[in-house]
């Protein structure tokens, strides 16, 4: 089946026209793609603008910078896919990859041209590089559209020796690290936008051509090395920042957000309970951390070691979870959503009002608890810059490493629970609560457990957040934050670790880097969710079984799931 049939607005006649073209000119697809790739590559060596102040200077010929480099990257990927189209391997579908890269390149070239024209005052000011790039992009797209459809045979995936597979993983993750560090250092918004388009086009191209699935296959064969390599890469990230705290501050925000989203994922993704007030548990942890800190505004004059504070944060948050959960988890999901929504607001208002005028002074009301000192582990001051191997690591880098440990812990809890008997019970509850009950699954107990574990993980993250932010105020814990957490889970892929990490990164990074996204972030995220629900309801990264839940009539997918089950059974 051709992928074009999925598009509802393509009529039958149009479809057959494209098919006819494909039959007539299919053999030229590879030539078009290679030519287009070459043009894109050349466009990177040409000038895009007269004005060297635009897009970080793309005016110089034969000295590619900024979007000139990205054009060359797109060109290289298109060239590679075009060459593969000649070779026709059974386990790759270069045509589909070319279509994605083609569309991406066209959008990229147009965006580049528009950016130059807008800033320099007219299309006339766009130099030859832009037009050559656009021509190349159109050729690549034409090549992609004309290339024949391939029925992928996943059984012919080449098996590399295990050291080579691990090498592939390390190289890919290394590229990821490089790309992340590079992306974060791009400041010009138009260039940043073009870079995102490029990276997206390359990523979708790789996934579309089947290369992504192959990488996933390699990853699945080497789970442990993959996990270690991923943490190594994450660990190395601060060393790429040259002591600058700008990106590290964003990175720590992302890690806290991701750790909290992963906790929420236990509640929503594994147990299938909709919690709309989850941010309150993060707030609980943060307030516990703040009240027990050495801040001059702390309301409790007790400063236990931070390890104790972390445990207390988890404990208090999970007690709140149990208090909210025990009356509501007996009723159906909708009520739970409403009650948790209410709880989130009650928490915020309570923190707002516990200022001594109404009830005891615990939180200083709207002023919150500022001046929370940095953590200090056995003389290691988190507020100081430390130099390791000649590279300075600032305050945020210190917190980053601590948060990395937190994420590792959360992931460990998540995966252990998911793979356990408890995880199986959650699956049963999600699928059919009544049947699960008849099978002897303690439905209420397991739901309560999910609620308490999720809450305690958020509480743990909160205690660290208090010290990293240096102040805790009620307005940090509004409903919108709960909604964003939920969006990260849904966007990334419910019930998966990698998906939620991706979702959290996207949702936190975009507003920080692109001002326009920040101004309209509710609108943009809303649109994003609507589009996702239409085209990929299972999330960006989805387990195969989750995919099956949303695409029940996909027989091919059912077979893949079946073969995976068989592998596991062995």
């Amino acid at each position, binding site marked *: 089946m051709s992928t074009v049939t999925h598009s509802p607005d393509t009529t039958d006649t149009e479809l057959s026209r494209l098919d006819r073209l494909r039959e007539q000119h299919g053999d030229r697809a590879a030539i078009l793609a290679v030519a287009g790739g070459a043009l894109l590559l050349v466009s990177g060596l040409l000038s895009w603008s007269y004005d060297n102040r635009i897009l970080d200077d793309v005016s110089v010929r034969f000295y590619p910078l900024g979007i000139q480099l990205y054009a060359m990257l797109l060109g290289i990927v298109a060239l590679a896919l075009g060459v593969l189209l000649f070779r026709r391997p059974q386990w790759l579908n270069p045509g589909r990859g070319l279509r994605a890269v083609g569309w991406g390149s066209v959008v990229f070239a147009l965006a580049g041209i528009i950016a130059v024209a807008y800033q320099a005052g007219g299309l006339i000011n766009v130099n030859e590089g832009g037009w050559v790039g656009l021509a190349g992009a159109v050729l690549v797209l034409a090549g992609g559209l004309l290339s024949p459809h391939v029925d992928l045979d996943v059984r012919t995936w080449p098996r590399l020796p295990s050291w080579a597979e691990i090498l592939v993983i390390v190289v890919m993750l290394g590229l990821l690290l490089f790309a992340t560090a590079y992306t974060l250092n791009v400041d010009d918004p138009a260039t940043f936008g073009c870079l995102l388009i490029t990276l997206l086009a390359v990523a979708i191209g790789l996934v579309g051509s089947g290369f992504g699935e192959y990488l996933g296959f390699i990853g699945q064969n080497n789970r442990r090395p993959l996990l270690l390599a991923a943490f190594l890469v994450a660990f190395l990230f601060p060393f790429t920042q040259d002591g600058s705290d700008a990106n590290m501050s964003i990175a720590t925000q992302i890690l806290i957000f991701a750790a909290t989203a992963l906790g929420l994922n236990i509640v929503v993704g594994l147990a299938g309970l909709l919690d709309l007030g989850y941010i309150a548990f993060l707030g609980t942890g943060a307030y516990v951390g703040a009240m027990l800190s050495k801040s001059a505004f702390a309301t409790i004059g007790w400063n236990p070691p931070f390890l104790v504070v972390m445990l207390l944060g988890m404990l208090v948050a999970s007690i709140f979870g149990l208090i909210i959960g025990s009356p509501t988890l007996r009723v159906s999901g909708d009520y739970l959503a409403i009650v948790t929504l209410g709880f989130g607001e009650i928490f915020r208002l309570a923190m707002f009002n516990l200022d001594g005028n109404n009830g005891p002074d615990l939180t200083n009301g709207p002023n919150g608890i500022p001046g929370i000192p940095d953590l200090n582990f056995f003389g290691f001051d988190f507020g100081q810059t430390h130099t390791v191997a000649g590279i300075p690591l600032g305050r945020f880098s210190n917190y980053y490493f601590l948060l990395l440990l937190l994420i590792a812990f959360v992931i460990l809890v998540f995966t252990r629970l998911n793979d356990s008997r408890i995880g199986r019970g959650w699956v049963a509850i999600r699928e059919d609560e009544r049947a699960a009950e008849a*099978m002897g699954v303690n439905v209420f107990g397991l739901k309560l457990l999910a609620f308490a574990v999720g809450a305690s993980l958020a509480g743990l993250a909160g205690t660290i957040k208090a010290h990293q932010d240096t102040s805790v105020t009620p307005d940090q814990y509004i409903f919108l934050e709960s909604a964003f957490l939920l969006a990260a889970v849904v966007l990334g892929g419910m019930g998966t670790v990698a998906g939620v990490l991706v979702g959290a990164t996207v949702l936190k990074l975009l507003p920080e880097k692109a001002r326009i996204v920040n101004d309209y972030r509710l609108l943009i995220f809303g649109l994003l969710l609507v589009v996702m629900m239409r085209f990929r309801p299972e999330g960006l990264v989805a387990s195969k079984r989750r995919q099956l839940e949303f695409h029940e009539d996909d027989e091919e997918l059912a077979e893949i799931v079946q073969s995976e089950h068989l592998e596991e059974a062995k």
Partner: protein
Amino acid sequence: MSAMLEVKDLVVSYGKIKAVKGISFTVDQGEVVSLIGTNGAGKTTTLRTISGLLRPVSGSIVFDGRDLTKVAPHEIVSLGLAHSPEGRRIFPKLSVEENLLLGAFSRKDKGIREDLAAAFELFPILEERRAQPAGTFSGGEQQMLAMGRAMMSRPKMLMLDEPSMGLSPLMMKRIMTTVTTLQQQGTTILLVEQNAQAALRRATKGYVLEVGSIVLSGTGKELLASDDVRKAYLGED
């Protein structure tokens, strides 16, 4: 033979409507007992109340010497009472094997793999398709899975709610033969059926339910021979 399950004056209601109006019956160890009756007679309600999914208004349910009316459903399964619910209620997106393992959820011992093998022996088709999502099964295969799943908790007594519903005559025969096999292997069975003939032929004892009350009882053979049953349930004049 001692009474494994003793239901006494059981009253169950949905709001103001009484679905079960004070029924009493016993199931002895090793028996196959059939509860027959038309739609709405209260058969499913009775089973759901026994397994703790519904709570009775009054009356007692004593299983293996313990009153179940205040015991949580998951504990009832642990006590050795398995329930294969109406409409099979298999987990359609989970594989056959995962479905079976969920049946053993109440257990934490090491014998689960053996019981998996036993379920596969009982229904070889399940082993062939152990990795297939259960929702792709035919009705009969789903029923086999539902029974296999219920047996995974290693129950002393198995309650089957309308296992023949929607099945072909051939498949129905297969299921009913399995009921006898399970009985011979030592499992006590409480069978709820609309298909009176099939249910009564294999039953050691039967009860006829009509709008919430037991109107007739006797051995399976007696009931099969009874004029009332023949008229009402077997369509004979």
